[in-house]
């Protein structure tokens, strides 16, 4: 794992340096000292989240807490996280809904004797290791930190919305107050204070498990050890760091 990361870093580094080099040649750079030298002694984290689909009760506490913690507008068009309900009928068709992101409960949709199986699925930014949103941002206003979290620089974002188009998971939206792109940050401001993301904090059934990838003893490690996990839309090679246990094939 570690070796793979190092290899990745070196490859990334080579690619970056050739590209940056070209630009430096073109423009010259005011801040040209290279930063990849690891002089800081902080351990490198790799944050990730496990989701136990079988434990989600669709209470919407996570959606509500996320909006409060991150001052997300309450209107039903802006969500850093939301909960979807899947109902697969006897005839095999699937019905999906997420009224107000699932924050106000789920009214009965179909008669129970028509249901084959049904469950809730929490969704959020997948914090991809190969993030299409970072790839398309023209100015570097959205970026991946050393600990694998993708953040947005709201004071630098143009509001071109290309990242919103590029996200396969619908995890991004345009904050109507700042007019910049926004999405889940794993509550980055909480992590540095030793706290869990707000959604994880309030989940009453431990359906969400937050932790560091690569540690041997942690809630996330136990989750990864005992479950067959799946990521969303693996064919797009975004390499998400949100891992779902017992995920149904209907979930996209």
């Amino acid at each position, binding site marked *: 794992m570690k070796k793979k990361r190092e290899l990745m870093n070196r490859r990334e580094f080579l690619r970056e340096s050739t590209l940056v080099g070209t630009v430096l040649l073109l423009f010259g750079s005011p801040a040209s000292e290279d930063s990849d030298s690891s002089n800081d002694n902080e351990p490198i984290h790799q944050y990730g989240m496990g989701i136990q689909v079988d434990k989600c009760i669709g209470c919407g506490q996570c959606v509500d807490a996320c909006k409060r913690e991150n001052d997300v507008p309450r209107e039903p068009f802006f969500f850093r996280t939301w909960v979807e309900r899947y109902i697969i009928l006897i005839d095999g068709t699937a019905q*999906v809904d997420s009224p*107000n992101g699932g924050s106000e409960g789920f009214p009965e949709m179909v008669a129970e004797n028509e249901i084959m199986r049904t469950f809730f699925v929490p969704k959020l930014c997948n914090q991809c290791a190969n993030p299409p949103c970072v*790839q398309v*941002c023209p100015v570097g*206003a959205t970026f991946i930190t050393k600990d694998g979290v993708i953040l947005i620089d709201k004071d630098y974002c143009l*509001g071109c919305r290309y990242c919103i188009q590029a996200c396969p998971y619908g995890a991004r939206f345009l904050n109507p107050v700042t007019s910049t792109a926004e999405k889940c940050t794993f509550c980055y401001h909480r992590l540095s204070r030793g706290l869990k993301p707000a959604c994880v904090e309030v989940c009453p059934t431990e359906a969400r498990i937050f932790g560091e990838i690569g540690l041997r003893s942690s809630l996330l490690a136990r989750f990864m050890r005992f479950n067959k996990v799946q990521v969303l839309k693996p064919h797009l090679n975004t390499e998400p760091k949100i891992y779902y246990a017992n995920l149904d094939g209907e979930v996209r």
Partner: protein
Amino acid sequence: MENLIEQLQPILKQVVGYIYPNEVELHWGILIVVYPYITGLVAGAFILASLERVFEVKEVQPTYRLSMLTALAFLIIAPLPLLAHLSYPERSIEIFLTPQLKSAMAMFGFVYAWYLMIVLMLEIWFDYRKDIVYWARSKKGWRKYMYYLLSLGSLDLSEKAIRFDRKAGKFITIIGIPSAFLLHGYVGFIFGSVKANPWWSSVLMPIVFLFSAIVSGIALMILIYGVTTLFRWKPIDMACMDKLASFLLYAMILDISLETLDFIHRMYESVESIHILGQLISQKLFISLVVIQILLGTLLPLGSLASVKLFRLPDELRRLIYFGAAILVQIGIFSTRWNVVIGGQLFSKSLRGLTHYKMELLGIEGLLISIALLFLPLFVLYIIIKILPPWPEAATTPLSSIAKESSQ
């Protein structure tokens, strides 16, 4: 913000099936439709101009300078819809400060600067230099100084200097053709490279964009050449018109073949997204795709242009057909852009539902601004023509004789 919420609330009721909650707001509106449409016209007009220059198609020679100026006028306006669409237009300078080199959109600044400064401006300058010098000498008052400034003080009209102008112009045109391909192919790439969106994600996208650009550019030049000639009370050069119409026909055949290939390929591969895209076409895009883009914008002009080839028709009727076809082609290509940009956002990336686009009338993202942006290039073109008249009678030496010289 209240305004936005008011707009989104009724859309929520029009959603069919399931869409991710963040997808209710449609992010790229009509301004982003206008942008590829305008750059398409630039690339198309330029490629038409290079036909005369590089491939020496003598018949379209009357449109050479006009096409160059049209391309310039439209190129000057091209970034405006993009800027107007940004939340923070003033931050657009960041694209030059810290371009993120993996981003297709970051390349816009560079592609644009290259095309505007190196290709179009230079080619026009080399082509016009001797006329500019002539006007700097013959005009009076402030005009004299303006032309002098435009000449950059390069007043040498010796045989050698003129020959260099011609050679440089031709060289730039040769660079210019791949550049025009780059400019518009790149716009197609912005959409074609979005793997999250099955309606956009296609390797053919840049090529389809390019050929539809050529189609729209030629059609535009038929209109502009025709209208300007009529307003100047000059006879329309029918040989030129016929040639333009032929090129339009050929370009359309290529364009429709590519689009059909794309369509058949999608149908035959029939991947996960095929159901929602089928719904998209039959429910949301039926009018703009099937009726306007295919029937009115492609098949009807294609048929009428082909009929001109088959039957011997009088000049007057041919002109009418060409004009009609060119107008229909413009409408068709505009709805092509609409179907790509808006169509690509009307279905959910969950592939489970469709949303709705409600265009504003007023406001920055509204219809009126878009119409203004579509006509603004014509106004710019009017000013450019005032400064650098492309007409043969305005030039120092008849252009035809120069063309003759160059072919010798």
